[in-house]
């Protein structure tokens, strides 16, 4: 029998979900071992949130220079230096990685480097060594999916390879108009790539309120980012000159590259979960609302748990489970209250229910919505961004959804998060006239209008 060490908690995977649980548990005085095969920080830090947002900022800088004339600034865009862009991105990731490592070690979390498998409901084995926990948290995260018959390789890439490109493609096809596809489409377009998005569903960012989807589509059309919705992939060929993608409607598309961005699958294969009786569905780990798997003291957090695949959801779930184990009895997380941001140009940001979801919940005629156009918002005019803030309320009830489109509006989702999760009424927000001239004011103006006292708007 292998040698074994005991902890209050053993965590499998050191991504957003895993490390947040570890940090919180350590704060609460528990001994924690965290098993990681690659790097602490996981997908988000090393090949997800952070590097994409670094590229998107470089893209914003390029756009700003290209459009500088409008603002009276004479500037010339001499080119995109992809090695410079990459070293900027890598520098950001590196600095945050260093900070995170320091944090993890300062909290005395033991990081076990290596590939772990669940060998019993309370034990993870790594390189023949066993780590036993009074509690186990599964946090093995996700990987870039592909479609049946669509092989990744060469000019057919996923986000991992897209982040490491050392050149700007002249043209690219993006398969999938969800968050990741749209973010790459946006940044490549800013870098000068001719982009075409293929999306099977009827809209881009199809999980969002349809007003946001339509708004983003309008904005992308203006940006000359081509997209074809309700369009099903059928096959791809590649040679040294490029890729040719065919779709089920018989059309073909050619480009330098094909980015496959059709979603993320749970990284749970071959980890022993099923063998230990953990309830699973299509690879995901099923839990109750307290993130317990129903087996022993095994919990799961992050992208392996069905729902929003977002880093801060992982953080929140990780913190929740640590507090649950510590007996703090935290209130369950309301999934719809987690904010969602697509960091494209323009940003798409939302929290709470879409109009359609609200109608399902409260009844067709028990929902009131309001759209405030950024045309009336001074700061947005200054930034030359179009878009809107849409509020969804229960009739005579609180605001249950905040939906926003426009440059930089992702930053406002925190205010939306308070509004929705604290169940504020339009009147509560309207009473607090927002700072002038901010974009944030648009949220205030929307609330004023929804409360029946529009200030800078025509309703």
């Amino acid at each position, binding site marked *: 029998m292998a040698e074994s060490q005991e902890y209050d908690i053993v965590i499998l995977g050191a991504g957003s979900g895993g490390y947040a649980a570890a940090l919180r548990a350590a704060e609460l005085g528990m001994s924690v071992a965290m098993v990681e095969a690659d790097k602490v920080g996981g997908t988000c830090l090393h090949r997800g949130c952070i590097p994409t947002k670094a590229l998107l900022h470089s893209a914003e800088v390029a756009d700003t220079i290209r459009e500088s004339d409008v603002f009276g600034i004479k500037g010339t865009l001499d080119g995109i230096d992809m090695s410079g862009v990459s070293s900027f991105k890598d520098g950001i990731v590196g600095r945050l990685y260093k900070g995170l490592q320091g944090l993890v070690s300062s909290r005395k979390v033991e990081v076990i480097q290596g590939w772990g498998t669940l060998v019993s409901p309370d034990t993870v084995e790594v390189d023949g060594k066993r780590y036993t926990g009074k509690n186990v948290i599964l946090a093995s995260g996700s990987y870039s999916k592909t479609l049946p018959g669509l092989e990744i390789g060469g000019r057919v890439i996923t986000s991992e390879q897209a982040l490491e490109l050392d050149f700007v493609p002249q043209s690219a096809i993006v398969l999938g108009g969800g968050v990741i596809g749209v973010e790459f489409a946006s940044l490549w377009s800013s870098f000068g790539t001719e982009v075409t998005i293929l999306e099977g569903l009827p809209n881009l960012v199809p999980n969002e309120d349809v007003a946001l989807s339509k708004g983003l589509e309008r904005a992308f059309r203006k940006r000359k980012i081509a997209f074809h919705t309700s369009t099903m992939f059928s096959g791809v060929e590649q040679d040294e000159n490029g890729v040719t993608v065919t779709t089920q409607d018989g059309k073909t598309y050619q480009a330098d590259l094909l980015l496959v961005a059709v979603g993320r699958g749970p990284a749970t294969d071959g980890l022993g979960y099923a063998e230990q009786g953990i309830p699973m569905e299509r690879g995901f780990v099923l839990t109750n609302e307290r993130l317990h798997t129903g087996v022993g003291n095994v919990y799961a957090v992050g992208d392996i748990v069905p729902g929003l695949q977002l880093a801060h959801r992982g953080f929140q779930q990780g913190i929740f489970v640590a507090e649950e184990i510590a007996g703090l009895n935290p209130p369950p997380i309301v999934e719809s209250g987690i904010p969602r941001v697509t960091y494209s140009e323009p940003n798409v940001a939302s929290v709470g229910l879409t109009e359609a979801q609200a109608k399902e919940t409260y009844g067709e005629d028990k929902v009131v919505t309001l759209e405030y156009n950024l045309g009336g918002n001074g700061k947005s005019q200054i930034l030359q961004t179009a878009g809107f803030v849409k509020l969804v309320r229960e009739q005579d*009830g*609180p605001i249950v959804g905040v939906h926003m489109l426009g440059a930089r509006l992702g930053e406002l989702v925190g205010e939306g998060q308070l509004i929705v999760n*604290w*169940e504020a*009424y339009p009147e*509560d927000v309207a*009473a607090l006239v927002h700072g002038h001239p901010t974009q944030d004011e648009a949220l205030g103006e929307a609330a004023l209008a929804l409360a029946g006292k529009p200030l800078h708007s025509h309703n």
Partner: protein
Amino acid sequence: EPATEKPAAPEPARERPTVGAGTAYVTPLVRKLAAEKGVDLSTVTGSGVGGRIRKQDVEEAAAAQQAAPAPAA
């Protein structure tokens, strides 16, 4: 004195915001907390500025309700 002797009255389905009309303003957080703790805000005396009901007031009222003899099951 908090009205601890009051029998549990049926809760209103949802507290409405009480902006204006002379009533003390209740923040969303206080309204939500009161709903969660089953505290009837009309029975709570606010200790905040201008009689504003604060979180502490709701918590005290909830504690007082708990301490009160439980109604016959």
